């Protein structure tokens, strides 16, 4: 498990860009955290790092949105499981069809989307719940590599600022 403190939204975007550097076609990222944690902000950074057509906005309404690459790299498939009832409904949107040639990033995917791939990055964002004098901007980001696709120490080097 890699733990990072991310002080503000710009740093969250920058983390996404660094993450993009270790992602390639076929990779799956599950992204969790409460409402307002910064999931879409991180996804925007990943989109910028991959060089895909934007804007990368919240996919809650459309459930899944495909962003084609502008640099001949893999597209970003940006998914939101917020409104899905579970694995059956995730299967309905047929992510397997694009899994191999795209980077697939699933917001609210914890406990729902693990079955998509044995190798995956699981990222959870905690918003600090404050205390005296806490400005409340800081996010604690936990990155976990599941399966053999990523070497965790190399990953840690890549994602740290």
């Amino acid at each position, binding site marked *: 498990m890699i733990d990072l403190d991310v002080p503000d939204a710009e740093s969250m975007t920058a983390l996404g860009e660094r993450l993009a550097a270790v992602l390639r076609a076929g990779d799956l990222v599950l992204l969790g955290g409460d409402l307002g944690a910064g999931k879409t902000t991180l996804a925007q950074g990943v989109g910028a790092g991959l060089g895909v057509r934007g804007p990368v*906005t*919240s996919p809650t309404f*459309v*459930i899944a*949105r495909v962003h084609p690459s502008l640099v001949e790299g893999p597209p970003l498939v940006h998914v939101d499981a917020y*409104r899905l009832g579970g694995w059956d409904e995730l299967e309905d949107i047929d992510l397997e069809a694009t899994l191999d040639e795209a980077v697939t990033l699933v917001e609210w995917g914890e406990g729902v989307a693990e079955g998509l791939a044995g190798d995956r990055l699981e990222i959870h964002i905690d*918003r600090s719940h404050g205390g005296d004098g806490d400005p409340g901007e800081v996010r604690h980001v936990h990155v976990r590599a599941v399966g053999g696709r990523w070497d965790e120490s190399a990953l840690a080097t890549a994602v740290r600022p």
Partner: protein
Amino acid sequence: MSDQPLILGIETSCDETGVGLVRGTTLLANAVASSVDEHVRFGGVVPEVASRAHLEAMVPTLHRALAEAGAGLGDVDAVAVTAGPGLAGALMVGVSAAKALAVALDKPLYGVNHLVGHVAAEQLENGPLAEPVVALLVSGGHTEILLVEDIATSATLLGQTLDDAAGEAFDKVARLIGLKYPGGPNIQRAAADGDPGAIRFPRGLTGQRDLERHRYDFSFSGLKTAVARWVETAEREGRAVPVGDVAAGFQEAVADVLTRKAVLACQERGISTMVLAGGVAANARLRELTRSRCAAAGIELRQPRFSLCTDNGAMIAALGAAVVERDLPPSSLDFASDSSLPVTQVLVG
């Protein structure tokens, strides 16, 4: 009136199965079946559920529209349908139905843009628009400022949300403060008992630097986070959350930034007419603030009744009628729906 062609419009881009009938700018029928009840258990729209609901509702809704207009299928002169943007599976149901009707009736088919359709709906309320107009579209899935130079041929995107749509923000904030889906009406109800000035929530993308880069764009995720933090702080300190004040403060922040930027777009582009549309246009505070700010800026505000603001088939028929009036070539029978159809494409080929 009856010498103008009878246009049948079909809309299935999201929740609503809509079929409308229009001649020119005259509304003859607006039948809508909503699958919202089916979605309440999810707190939103699930694509496969929506597709199934559209499939079941399509033929009954068509019959209701024809009965409402006192017309038969044989009277229809052209078929218009939402080609995008929207949910892929849901769009496909409407497009397939429209193609089948066009082939069976041997009439031309027009695949048109959902967003421009919202603007065209206004013509059914108050007659032809004098373009150019600025349109503020706000719904569960859309938050856009459009410049419509010509309703049948030319629209451009001036600004849009960079993260959450306004309606989505209403739904998520409702959840944060313990109100049910759909968030819009529930927050409005709670806000009626609150003080909009009690809590000042942030207005996204209104700082000087943001205004340079994102002049007409919106951001509601920071507002959502601010509400979450406010509620958490109150709970941690053992204070009861004043749901009315939070709802009113949030609603005020959304209405303020939407209207401020839409009026700015009118002023800077020299546009004297604004159209307000989309489901969130039902929000009383947004309507009131838009009205007063437009009046102060000398802008004529036009907005259709609520049943023409939310997704419906009549708006698609209205846009179809505008396209037919221009003698534009119909869409080919093999056109595909496009879930991310850009607003610049009013009519698909």
